[in-house]
């Protein structure tokens, strides 16, 4: 199992880890995460890659106290949805006190290990 990847998802994480995050956009400007062959909002198949902006804004967040087994040692942790001006990503917030995370906070996206399983996880850290 260990050599098996999830194709474009793993490629996306690798790029994000290198600071070269990207997303897909359709002709109607709907931002999407790979792999996509068609836009779920309009059906457009002409998708092109665009660079992920350096930082985005938290649009909602929650502190999870009861995790799935794969985050057992991480809990409590904060999960947030972040708007990168065109596409949104969900990830774990690190580097901000949990009680201080607020909607509107600016963060950058990277990839770090999950504490429980060592699995690669999308992580947001405060923007400089």
């Amino acid at each position, binding site marked *: 199992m260990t050599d098996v990847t*999830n194709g474009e*998802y793993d490629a996306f994480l690798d790029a994000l880890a290198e600071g070269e995050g990207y997303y897909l956009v359709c002709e109607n400007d709907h931002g*999407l*995460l790979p792999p996509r062959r068609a836009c*779920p*909002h309009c059906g457009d198949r002409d998708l092109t890659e665009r660079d992920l902006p350096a930082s985005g804004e938290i*649009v*909602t*967040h*929650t*502190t*999870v*106290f*009861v*995790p*799935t*087994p*794969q*985050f*057992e040692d*991480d809990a*409590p*942790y904060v*999960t*947030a*949805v972040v708007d990168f001006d065109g596409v*949104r*990503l*969900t*990830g*774990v917030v690190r580097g901000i006190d949990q009680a201080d995370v607020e*909607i509107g906070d600016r963060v950058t996206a990277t990839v770090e290990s*999950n504490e429980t399983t060592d*699995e690669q*996880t*999308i992580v947001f850290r405060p923007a400089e």
Partner: protein
Amino acid sequence: MTSFGSHPDRTGRDMFAEAGLAALEDAGVPAADVDELFYGNFVGTLSEGQGHQGPLMAEALGTTAPSRRIESACASSGVAVRDAVRAIRSGEADVVVAGGMERMTNMGTAGATKGLAGAADDLYEVRSGVTFPGAYALMARAYFDEYGGSHEDLAHIAVKNHDNALVNDHAHLQQEITVEEALGAPEIASPFTLYDSCPISDGASALVLTSPEYADEHDLEANVAITGAGHGGDTMALHDRQSLSKTPATRDAAEEAYDDAGVDPSDIAIAEVHDCFTIAEVLALEALGLYSHGEAIGAARRGETRRDGELPVNLSGGLKAKGHPVGATGAAQVAAIATLLDGTHPRADAVDDDATVGVAQNAGGTVASATVHVLEVME
């Protein structure tokens, strides 16, 4: 339906047999007349290691009629009812059983949490720490940010639904709670505490649906009919949606069901909505057109959706207190509305004598799937 609750040692086939055989008996329909089974189930391959559950559940009812297992997460049996209605309307079936079953407590809390998380996008949500309560917590926080409202408003929904379940002997939780207790309960995923969340339940539900012609020919006592059905969809992942505080899948399903039945939201006297988490009741009432956006958050606190209010919601106790054996929920909601309108539900005394229209809303995942059924008292 079976009692919803913690039945870790009961097999799925036995729970569905109990619900389905009781439904056939209550309807006065022999198993031999069943043309098809529409059976909803979410995590059966994980919890019981059992695939291909359709034929197994048909057998449990005493028939080898054709069947299928429908998996749409928490909307599995809502979709089963919807497809069953279509089968009858197409003229291809006269008698169908639609229902569902879920066995979850045998998986333990961690196992069930993992199983339920399967209703979200595994790659882009679950691997980013999203749990099922967490996903609804993300929606709740976005709702508060957009429209206002507080955790205390949500606590009033939990108190109301627990109170409604006190007389429902099929309910998982028959326990009165207070707003203070709800607010002070252990945190699950902020802003939610334990009492914002439905329990992990086992149970089964089943409905016998027939064509009007079959009911006439066999002199069945069918006082309530499904007159409208709708089914809506949305993206799996929350982050792919334009709004985190609205649920267009429910809106689309409702519009379809209301058009089908020829009713307006103003005709609706009672509703059973998918309150897997307290905020979900708010999102459902707004998407059903029963409240404007931003208004349903205070409905329970103001008393409007309590059983003595203008629009009683979740008189059964809802998923919150009646329980949520995932695959059984949608059909159980339809059964609740039917028996409330028919006067045979333990909370039927809260339904106005002149009430003729009720609605049941079932949601899958963070409402990437939704079904709405309109039920009406027949003249």
